[in-house]
């Protein structure tokens, strides 16, 4: 890894999550720096999706800490406040395993609805 001053975009520490008796994430640590490409691999059902969902605040972990772009998204069993969470999410992209495209919108509308509705950009700006 080059340069020690690399910006840390994602920092996960001691993250744990159980669904009932099933322990899915057990003290997971992960750090991703800007422009780094990271692959998480594991067998089906090993918790890859769960980890990503926790990092987006779609799933609430039980213990540990998650920092995204310098903002603490999750710590001590508590998620960031809704409005701050929404702001953070506009800066983080997520592609779902089952895509979850919006079927009532066109392709262009699907890719531009985020910037348009939330950051109040015009269609041409968003389409860039």
């Amino acid at each position: 890894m080059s340069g020690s001053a690399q910006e840390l975009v994602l920092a996960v520490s001691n993250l744990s999550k159980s669904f009932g008796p099933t322990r899915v994430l057990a003290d997971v640590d992960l750090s991703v720096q800007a422009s780094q490409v990271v692959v998480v691999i594991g067998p089906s059902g090993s918790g890859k999706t769960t980890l990503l969902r926790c990092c987006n605040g779609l799933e609430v972990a039980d213990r540990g800490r998650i920092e995204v772009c310098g903002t603490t998204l999750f710590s001590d069993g508590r998620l960031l406040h809704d409005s701050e969470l929404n702001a953070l999410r506009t800066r983080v992209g997520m592609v779902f395993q089952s895509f979850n495209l919006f079927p009532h919108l066109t392709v262009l509308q699907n890719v531009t609805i985020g910037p348009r509705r939330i950051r109040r950009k015009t269609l041409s700006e968003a389409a860039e």
Partner: protein
Amino acid sequence: MKLDFGPVWANWSDLAHGAMVTVEVTGAALVLGCLLGLLVGLLRLDPRKRVRYAVGSVYVTFIRGTPLLVQLFLLFFGLPQFGIVLPAFFCGVLGLGIYSGAYQSEIVRGAIQSIDKGQMEAARSLGMSHGMAMRAIILPQAIVRMIPPLGNEFIALIKNSALVSLLTISDLLHEGQKIISVSYRSLEVYLAVALIYLLLTNATGFALLRLERRLRVGGLVQ
């Protein structure tokens, strides 16, 4: 036994006027019912929000579990005991609207809950608030799914509106009964009344079918 539709023709304008009143009562009740239905449907989306859910449930349970006629009588004959005297037309609209709202709320709730929950998650992951995701992503898709059951509900409402004739409202049925009281032609007049209801219900059904097709073509559904 000969049928004599003379009294029907002779009093045609009264029947037409009654039909107009039926359309007015039903139309106003429909608007009220839709508003209540959407509101209560949204209230009951999440059982974890106890108070909201309980309020909605009490409403749906009471309204769905008691006869419409009893509800109408409570409004029209019951409320005056508290000094609340509402005009008959207003009582009819209020009673029918509240009644229909309970059924419509279940239609709204069912349609929203039938939308894949990944849609809400995807919208939230873009940074939308819950309310914005509901308005921009979930409701436009849910509305298309609401139309067929809402069509049933609207048609039921037209037919149920005949009960307001018992609140002294001069609706289609009431006008028919007035004609019968002087002509004694029950069969002919009730047949004519039934036919007019049939026209009203089927016109509604047809209009909703057109609307559904339009929304589909308009790309509101895959």
